[in-house]
C-alpha cells in the first residue's frame, strides 16, 4: 500500500494521527449503519419477493378474466360500465426515515362504505358474470398491490443507499485507514532515525574533543 506523500515532520504526524482517529470513528459508524440497513433490507426484500409472486399471479388471472369478459361484450358497453368508477382511492405519502434513508410510507383510504355489499355498480344489462368475477378478483388484489408498491419502493431506495454505504465503508477500510497507518509508521520511523542520528553525532563530536 502506497504511503501518502508528506514530509516526515512532527506536525504532519500529529495531523495524520487526528485523521486516523476520525477515519476509524467514521468507519465504525458507517459499518454499523450498513449492518442495520442490511438487516432491514433483507427482511423487506424477502417480503417483497413473496408478495410480488402472489400479486402477479392474481393480477394475471384477474386481467385474463377481464379480457374474457370483454371479448363477450361490445367495447362501447365496457367503456360505459367503467366510465364512472364506483369508488375512489386516496393516497397519502409520508416520508419515514430508516437510518437516514428517506422512504415513503403510503397510506391508502378507499371509500369502502360499500364493502358489505359487492362493489359492482353497473346494471345487469350489457354486462356479464365474467366481468363480475374479474372485478371481484381485481378488488381482492388491490390491497396487496398497494402494499407491494410501498415495499418495493422502499427496497429500491434501501438498495441504493446500502450500495453507496458499502463503497464508503470499503474505501475507508481498505484504502484510507491502511494508508494513514502506513504513513504514520513511516514518519515515526523517520523521526526516530533522525533522533538516533542526532545522538550519535553528538557522541562523535564529544569523542573528538
Amino acid at each position, binding site marked *: 500500500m502506497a504511503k501518502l506523500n508528506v514530509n516526515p515532520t512532527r506536525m504532519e504526524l500529529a495531523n495524520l494521527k487526528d485523521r486516523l482517529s476520525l477515519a476509524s470513528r467514521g468507519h465504525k459508524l458507517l459499518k454499523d449503519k450498513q449492518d442495520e440497513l442490511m438487516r432491514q433490507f433483507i427482511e423487506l426484500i424477502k417480503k417483497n419477493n413473496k408478495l410480488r409472486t402472489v400479486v402477479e399471479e392474481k393480477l394475471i388471472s384477474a386481467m*385474463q378474466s377481464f379480457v374474457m369478459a370483454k371479448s363477450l361484450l361490445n367495447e362501447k358497453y365496457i367503456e360505459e360500465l367503467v366510465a364512472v368508477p364506483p369508488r375512489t382511492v386516496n393516497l397519502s405519502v409520508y416520508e419515514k426515515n430508516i437510518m437516514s434513508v428517506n422512504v415513503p410510507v403510503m397510506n391508502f383510504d378507499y371509500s369502502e362504505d360499500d364493502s358489505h355489499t359487492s362493489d359492482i355498480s353497473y346494471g345487469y344489462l350489457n354486462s356479464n358474470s365474467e366481468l363480475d368475477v374479474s372485478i371481484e378478483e381485481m378488488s381482492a388484489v388491490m390491497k396487496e*398491490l398497494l402494499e407491494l408498491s410501498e415495499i418495493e*419502493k422502499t427496497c429500491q431506495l434501501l438498495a441504493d443507499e446500502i450500495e453507496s454505504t458499502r463503497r464508503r465503508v470499503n474505501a475507508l477500510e481498505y484504502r484510507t485507514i491502511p494508508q494513514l497507518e502506513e504513513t504514520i509508521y513511516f514518519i515515526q520511523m523517520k523521526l526516530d532515525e533522525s533522533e538516533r542520528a542526532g545522538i550519535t553525532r553528538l557522541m562523535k563530536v564529544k569523542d573528538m574533543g
Partner: protein
Amino acid sequence: MAHKIGVVGDKDSILPFKMLGFDVFYASEAKEARKMVDHLAKNEYGIIYLTETLGEKIPDTIRRYDSKIQPAVILIPNHTGSLNIGKKRIQDNVEKAVGQNIL
C-alpha cells in the same frame, strides 16, 4: 399530502383498474409510455403502475425515478402473463445491496 395513482399500459389489461378508482392511461408505444410516465410524475402521482411490456421498452425512464421517493414506478404484468421483469428488478436490488443473489 394527497396523491393520485396512475396506471399506464395497454387497454385490455388496465381497463379494470379504472373500477378500483385508479386513473388509467393508455399507451402502446414506447414513446407514448415515456411521455405519459413523465407527465404523471410531474403531476404529483404517488404511484405509477406500468405494464411490463411497456416497461421493457423504457428502462431508462424507469431508472430515472428509481432514486426518487416519488413517484414509485411499479411494474405489473399484463393479461398475457408476466415477463418476469418485476422479479428481475427485485433480484437486481438484492444483488446490488448484498453482492450476490440470496433469494
